[in-house]
């Protein structure tokens, strides 16, 4: 190795002469002051947004260790994640995790594709799988995100972002196993043409928590990116098939299958403006052996244009259309949808202006208009203020309105003599007040603190009709407030040792409206812990060893009651060679006897036990 003596014949000279590009003429200082648009439009700029956003990085995803998206989401302190069974999770932000596991106030997207179902506005988490190494990050926003994302982004947004094909080249084989689960995936990435890259992958998963519930899933997919600095194109798609044994009185089998394809074109203009157009189609099917089945086809087109106007305005405008067509086959003698099949159209348009009032203060005003087949035109305005008192910190405040528009299950689910659907059910409505502060206090310490006060109106209730208690009807008979604090931070004790801590405290004050004939009470709205605490220690010992320890506390759930619990996980990651890595993770180390995280009254409680997961990865 050469010594560090500076070469006489140094290449330290004046910067090269200028040519036609303006950037070349700037000094390095000036270059660092050039405002940039992010590669992925609004997705990445959200990282700087004045909102309660937590980004689960690729490193965090790897260190979660157990190759499942819902499990990786546990690392976001601003989410409440509870496991229901081998494949299903109840996940929400800022409360309202519904006792059936169907939280419905969260917008979840995978690479810009909406994945919540129009049937009940919740997410089938068993359909959301990926080669974890191919994920770039998961952005988790707690609080309303209605302006850019639209209805259903009431309590939060989860945005799962996969890596560009250029970043996933070569062969990767990864897999893992525990006593109750297996996962195996392979991906190959290559190039084409002058500037194109692609990857293809296959994935097989098998999981069971508590015999005899077992879940198997197989998935194939691809992603391709090409183009240059001016025009960039993405085409990607997935196909999956899975089945799951579930114990509901008798053993039942649920089969799922589906696929999606998405294309996106992004043009960056020399002015700095950016236009993106994306379209996708998505199909999902579920069949239960008892005869119930549901098919949903969705298609959507979205456009977004981001540009600056004068020195002080940065605008994003967009419009989109989404259509879903579903068909629901009831089982014998159970609930049915009337009509059994329906097409729903949603049209939307939004505008958001970021105004630089001074160098340190931005005002962000926006509104989204959305027209749906149930309630007509909905408007979701938001006003945010961002103040940067110094380079490393941000104080922000926001007032936003968001709505959850009705779903098929809210309005058209019927059971003769028992349930009459919700012929008058309208949107649930939120007015949210938020205040936050985040700062890079110094090189080692980073933290974020956000508080919220949410005023809900027209929340869903099940009410008696004039005919007696039954049949029930779905109406909007509940209102009230929720409030809470979300805090998280990261402290680097040393270059090789980092501590992450999170706190999530919330409380609800809901009431049934006067005049409502509600029969279930406010517990119907959700079953949420008051307090969640988490602490993670992440060590990188040399280049080759990772040693992680994490603990979380979740306070009790009131109704149905679930005891408070502490879960401790540990993981050792070993980089054996540059191509081969091994990791051993232990989950729920304190839970020899098993415990529940959530209770769905229509299912027997599932016990989650201690498990050891060994995984290996080889990449070319």
């Amino acid at each position, binding site marked *: 190795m050469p010594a560090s003596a500076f070469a006489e014949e140094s290449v330290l000279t004046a910067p090269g002469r200028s040519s036609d590009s303006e950037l070349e003429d700037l000094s390095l200082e000036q270059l660092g002051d050039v405002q940039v*648009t992010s590669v992925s439009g609004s997705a990445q700029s959200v990282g700087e947004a004045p909102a309660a956003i937590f980004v689960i990085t690729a490193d965090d995803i790897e260190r979660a260790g157990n190759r499942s998206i819902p499990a990786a989401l546990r690392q976001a302190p601003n989410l409440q994640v509870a496991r229901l069974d081998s494949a299903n999770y109840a996940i929400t932000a800022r409360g309202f995790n519904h006792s059936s596991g169907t939280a419905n106030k969260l917008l979840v997207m995978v690479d810009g594709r909406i994945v919540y179902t129009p049937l009940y506005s919740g997410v089938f988490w068993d359909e959301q799988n990926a080669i974890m190494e191919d994920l770039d990050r998961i952005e988790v926003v707690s609080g309303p995100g209605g302006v850019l994302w639209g209805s259903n982004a009431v309590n939060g947004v989860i945005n799962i972002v996969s890596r560009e094909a250029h970043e996933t080249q070569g062969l990767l084989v990864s897999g893992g196993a525990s006593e109750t689960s297996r996962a195996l995936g392979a991906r190959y990435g290559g190039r084409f043409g002058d500037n194109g890259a692609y990857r293809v992958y296959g994935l097989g998963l098998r999981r069971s928590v508590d015999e005899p519930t077992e879940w198997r899933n197989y998935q194939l997919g691809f992603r391709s990116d090409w183009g240059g600095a001016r025009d960039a194109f993405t085409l990607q798609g997935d196909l999956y098939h899975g089945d799951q044994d579930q114990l509901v009185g008798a053993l039942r089998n649920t089969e799922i299958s589906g696929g999606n394809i998405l294309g996106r074109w992004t043009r960056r203009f020399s002015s700095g403006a950016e236009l993106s157009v994306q379209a996708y189609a998505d199909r999902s099917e579920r069949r239960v052996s008892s005869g119930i089945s549901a098919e949903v086809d969705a298609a959507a087109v979205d456009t977004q244009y981001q540009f600056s106007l004068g020195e002080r305005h940065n605008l994003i405008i967009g419009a989109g259309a989404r259509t879903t067509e579903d068909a629901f086959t009831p089982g014998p003698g159970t609930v049915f949808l009337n009509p059994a099949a329906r097409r729903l159209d949603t049209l939307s*348009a939004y505008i958001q202006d970021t105004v630089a009032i001074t160098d340190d203060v931005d005002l962000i005003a926006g509104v989204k208009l959305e027209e749906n087949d149930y309630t007509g035109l909905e408007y979701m305005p938001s006003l945010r203020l961002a103040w940067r008192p110094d380079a490393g910190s941000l104080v922000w405040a926001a007032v936003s309105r968001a709505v959850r528009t009705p779903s098929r299950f809210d309005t058209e689910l019927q059971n003769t003599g028992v349930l009459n659907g919700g012929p008058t059910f309208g949107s649930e409505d939120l007015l949210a007040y938020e205040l936050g502060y985040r700062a890079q206090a110094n090189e080692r310490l980073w933290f974020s603190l956000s508080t919220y006060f949410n005023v809900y109106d027209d929340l869903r209730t099940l009410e008696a009709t004039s005919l007696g208690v039954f049949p029930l009807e779905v109406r909007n008979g509940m209102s009230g407030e929720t409030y809470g604090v979300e805090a998280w931070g990261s402290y680097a004790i040393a270059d090789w040792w980092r501590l992450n801590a999170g706190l999530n405290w919330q409380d609800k004050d809901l009431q049934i409206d006067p005049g409502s004939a509600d029969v279930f009470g406010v517990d119907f709205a959700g079953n949420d812990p008051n307090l969640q605490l988490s602490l993670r220690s992440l060590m990188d010992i040399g280049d080759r060893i990772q040693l992680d320890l994490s603990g979380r506390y979740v306070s009790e759930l009131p109704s149905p009651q679930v005891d408070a619990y502490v879960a401790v996980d540990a993981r050792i990651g070993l980089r054996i060679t540059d191509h081969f890595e091994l990791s051993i993770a232990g989950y729920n180390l304190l839970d020899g006897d098993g415990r529940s995280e959530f209770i769905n009254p229509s299912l027997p409680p599932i016990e989650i036990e201690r498990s050891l997961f060994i995984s290996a990865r080889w990449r070319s």
Partner: protein
Amino acid sequence: MRLASILLAMSAIVALGSPASAQTAQEEVKATFIYRFVSYIGWPPASFPDAGLPVQLCVIGADPLARTLERATMAQRVGARHFEVRRIGDADDIDACHVLYVVGDRTAAALRAARRRAILSITSGGSERGVIHFTIVDARVRFYIDDALAEEGGLTIDPRLLNLALSVRRRSAS
């Protein structure tokens, strides 16, 4: 339909706005930084055995940026040297590189391969960091410098560049 008129109004805004924008694509700023850094880095003599040798800018996992870099450096010189941009697929291939920009899957392997060599490693986002590590702060491209890592490879960094970094991990005092 009320929305139709809103959409129409919005497309009118698009048509009207041909703004003199203060915004630029992130890649262009990073690419400009990358070749401009070269003027502030001292390589050991063995790195440039011949006065006319081009500065090798290697890129792994970021083809669009490589293209931008090719365009930006076409007419540029550092002293007598011009630039050569190479997109490389594999970390084993970095021997001739003077600068290595790496993102994505290969980052860890490439950084290990570049270690203790006179290669200016540059990374972006992510948890693995080269000598220079880009980050976005307040919609601006900024960077960290690991001067200790530079020292291991026998590189020197001009204090003027160190001054511009968000933070510097210092080399051992000597």
